[in-house]
């Protein structure tokens, strides 16, 4: 079967979203970890911020990233008519 422009647009939007979410994932994991002793050592509700991020904050971000991706992509499937069960 032949890919249409619509297909290509769907795929590039998917790639863009993937890149943005991956960047967030990278920052909360590696940037915060790298600067744990310096920038992110301030007190946050009783925890040093980098410790709290490692123990809870980054985990919450991961869960939200995956939730958002699933929601966004499931909508995008509908919008571009590529959801399962929708034949062209």
């Amino acid at each position, binding site marked *: 079967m032949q890919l249409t422009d619509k297909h290509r647009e769907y795929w590039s939007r998917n790639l863009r979203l993937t890149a943005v979410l*991956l960047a967030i994932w990278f920052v909360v994991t590696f940037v915060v970890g*790298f600067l744990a*002793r310096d920038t992110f050592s301030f007190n946050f509700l009783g925890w040093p911020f980098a410790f709290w991020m490692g*123990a809870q904050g980054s985990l919450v971000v991961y869960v939200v990233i995956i939730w958002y991706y699933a929601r966004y992509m499931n909508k995008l499937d509908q919008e571009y008519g*590529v959801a399962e069960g929708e034949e062209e």
Partner: protein
Amino acid sequence: MSGATSQKAFTAQLKKIYTWYTGGFVFFVIALTILELMGMPRQWIGYVFLIATVLLYAGIGVMSRTSDASEYYVAGRRVPAVFNGMATGADWMSAASFIGMAGTLYLQGYSGLAFIMGWTGGYVLVALFLAPYLRKFGQFTIPDFLGARYGGNLARFVGVLIAILCSFVYVVAQIYGVGLITARLTGLSFEVGVFVGLAGILVCSFLGGMKAVTWTQVAQYIILIIAYMIPVVWLSVKHTGIPLPQLVYGSVLQKVTAREAELIDAKTPAGAKEAEVRKIFADRASAAEAKLKALPGSYDTEKAALQKAVDDAKAANAAPEVVAAAQKSLDGYPKDAKAAEAAWKRDAAVKARANAPLRHAEAFPAKDDKARDIARKNFLALIFCLMVGTAALPHILMRYYTTPSVKEARSSVFWSLFFIFLLYFTAPALAVLVKFDVYTLLVGSEFAKLPAWVASWSKVDPSLLSIVDVNKDGIVQLAEIAIGGDIVVLATPEIAGLPYVISGLVAAGGLAAALSTADGLLLTIANALSHDLYYKMINPNASTATRVGVSKALLLVVALLAAYVASLKVADILFLVSAAFSLAAAGFFPALVLGIFWKRTTGIAAVLGMVAGTVVTFYYMATTQPWMRSVFGVTSPVSDNTWWDIAPISAGVFGVPLGFAIIIIVSLITPAPKREVQELVEHVRYPNLRGDTMNTTSN
């Protein structure tokens, strides 16, 4: 749309069944508590938990028995997202997560958070790069994808080898954990424990394959999460008055930090006592080191000195108990120089206990900036390996074949991480709460009045907990406590003052965690052998019944083999588990991701990349990890073999980039893949496309 309606009815029915099941389980625990209060002996409670849970899992296995290929390999592809999430959670959380992780956090403080982030953040990679696409591809195993995408049996075969390599070391560790927990729960011997646990694993996966394993794992998840939460919540109420440990332990952490400062500072009264004990350990270690250095001569001089002490005492007509004491140390002296060397080496090892306690919340504690940099580098490298490894372990990826659709696969990753998150964000809280208990209630108390849990656990296993009054002042100092990580989870019910039933429940939770992971891994290995090796490569004409039969037979063989290896108690099993992550990361991740996201990736490039990534990772471990070095007879100094001071546990940090680089370079210099392969890539990218070359239906 009758398919959707029946799926809806199916989900509703599942919800009903598992709600009743959870209620029944809670009722069962309450009933046992009442029986305990009425005087049921502890031993019985252990047996009841073991027998009841294993029978339960076996019952689910028998009810789900099947010989249909789609049911057997992918649970009929109708597992709803939420339930697949729970099953993945149980599949994922092993004995190491359930029992070991809070202990690691207790012992390592901030550095232990690498496991928390690494073992959760990997699901972001699963969600973004793999799960929906593999579901759309819709076959049975990970080597299936490699075989189809990279045109042939070579890629499939390499995939089979890597899958077996990383799953087998992992399953050995799980069966080992099953043996330990069974032994602790019932008092049976470790070896018997291994085989009892094995029966529980087999009856489930053997009869019903993925279908039985899925429904058992859901049941196991419910048990393990209840078992983990009850003691932590109780402990939180004890120390903060609020039953939400995850939200309030920040204040406890501050108290722990203040207490650490007091114990480290030798100017405070408590700190001075700590320093005194640490000095005794330091002296003992340096005396032993001096004697070790002077071997073999020191053996005779030491012996002569002891003999002289006896003679002097006798000559001086000392009191009989003085003579007896001198005689006793002479009698206790090692029989020969070799025994003396071993004993002194043990003494020299107490040097570690002469170090000041670590500050729990401090990131990368070390003596100078250079050492801190190395600690930070290794912390980040370990997170990277654990994350990428998570997104490459076949027993996890395989689970996303079982959902009814791509849409459900995406949601299912969310539910997987959500259910894993519940336990993972509780573990750091548990570690801090237990630390608070030990630092403030145990340290500073009198030896004559130790809490009951201390006495009972140091009797069970001195490697878990031992307290000796080193400076003979009758007061417990932190430096006098030697603690093993596993005790943090195992003893929490007693520390929190809960009845023994809850201890039994925690052990049953640990058993559920180990059994569920072992189930998933065994199935992965058996499927790689029966489906990929036998059906796809050796005998493509095999009937469905033969394939499932072969898989069941192999399952039995692999399980027995793994149990045999586990019963040998191979050294460094924890290292092997972590090694599985690095190996899977380097072996699978580049080839899988590039296969989906870059059409130009060619078959030969993928094969070379997989092999190179795995080999370099394995090579780095073999030359830098003590146990691996002894296996392979590597004698050159470790420092010559390390690259950028990276620890062997994070060897994947070299293998993954190398895999990517080789696949990209070789792909660019080899001819582009055939049109039908490119169409397959398009097919997995768009949920509604029907591939021309692929049979996407689930049989």
